[in-house]
């Protein structure tokens, strides 16, 4: 069990629930990044059968050192528990001077669970804009789509093209829409991806000490004062690509996931669910 100080806080968890990802810039130190790059070059990265506890993977390697960093352990534990299961890993390569980008997609297949897997994306070298970093669409993780079915969407307002320094880590909800962008440089771009499955019920696994007793008390619905950075506020923020009507349903999707993660079954944002649940006998 990692020390509580390394776990995510409730604002970070709310951010993950709302947007489907967390980003940690330059989290991994240079010596690990360089060692991982050497292991990639010598094709020395060996995964494990699906379902292997993560603690048994990558023994003695640079990737193990990366995974053992307290901040990395803290975020893994907060999202999928202390010893999640290894699902698969992959070294994603964007070849130099590619003709086009990958199509937008969600990984694996359509997945209706409230339980979620995470995908860690680790960028062991600098990725400038023209090098085809991962493109991701914040808030897309609740959409029920099957893999490449969304490849028709070339650009969406609010999309994030990963431009980052070596050692940057993304933690993604399994449903997030993403793709590898076109690499216009003459260098290969590498990204290491690791999918992890929870082995425990995802219930208050992060540091919940910051949840004030009144954090879920019902607020006045239309008020300009609601932008307080609290959980309800974070879960109410629309992404720029949300349609007017479906955007409201996305808030409901977030409320449902937050209830699942906290066990707070009365939790609400803007009364979206409370209103529907009011059925006097």
């Amino acid at each position, binding site marked *: 069990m990692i020390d509580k100080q390394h776990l995510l806080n409730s604002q970070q968890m709310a951010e993950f629930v709302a947007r489907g990802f967390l980003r940690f810039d330059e989290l991994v130190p240079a010596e690990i990044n360089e060692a991982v790059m050497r292991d990639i070059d010598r094709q020395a990265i060996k995964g494990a059968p699906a379902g292997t506890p993560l603690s048994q993977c990558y023994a003695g390697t640079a990737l193990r050192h990366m995974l053992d960093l307290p901040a990395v352990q803290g975020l893994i534990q907060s999202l999928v528990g202390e010893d999640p299961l290894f699902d698969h890993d992959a070294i994603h390569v964007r070849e130099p001077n590619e003709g*086009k980008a990958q199509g937008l997609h969600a990984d694996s297949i359509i997945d209706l669970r409230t339980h979620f897997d995470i995908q860690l994306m680790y960028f062991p070298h600098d990725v400038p804009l023209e090098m085809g970093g991962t493109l991701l669409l914040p808030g897309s993780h609740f959409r*029920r789509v099957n893999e490449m079915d969304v490849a028709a969407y*070339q650009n*969406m307002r609010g999309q994030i093209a990963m431009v980052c320094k070596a050692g940057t880590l993304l933690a993604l909800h399994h449903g997030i829409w993403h793709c590898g962008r076109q690499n216009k440089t003459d260098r290969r771009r590498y990204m290491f991806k690791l999918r992890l499955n929870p082995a425990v019920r995802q219930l208050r696994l992060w540091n919940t000490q910051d949840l004030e007793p009144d954090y879920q008390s019902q607020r006045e619905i239309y008020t300009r004062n609601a932008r307080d950075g609290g959980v309800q506020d974070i879960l109410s923020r629309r992404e720029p690509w*949300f349609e007017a009507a479906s955007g409201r349903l996305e808030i409901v999707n977030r409320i449902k996931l937050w209830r699942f993660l906290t066990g707070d079954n009365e939790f609400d944002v803007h009364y979206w669910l409370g209103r529907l649940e009011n059925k006097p006998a």
Partner: protein
Amino acid sequence: MATIRQQVLTLYLATSALDSRVLGWSMYDGTGDQAHTTGDSDTPPYETGLDALRDGWRLLQLPVLIPPYPGEEYSTSFMKYGFVFEKLEDTGA
């Protein structure tokens, strides 16, 4: 003959109204002049669907409104309001 080529633009809008805001966009150019791909632009080509009409794009298809399937009223999936436009370009000498 046959020097006319099609350019196709799909705009994903905020509501079912053609004059609502553009949220997503995709373009395919049959003339071969431009190659569009995923994540190549952060700025939409038009602010609204109507702006595309005013710039000479011809509307080919508008989204059909389908009531939610029973039991799926609260789930979200594809973008609902994709409007398809075309322009015809003469590539002949």
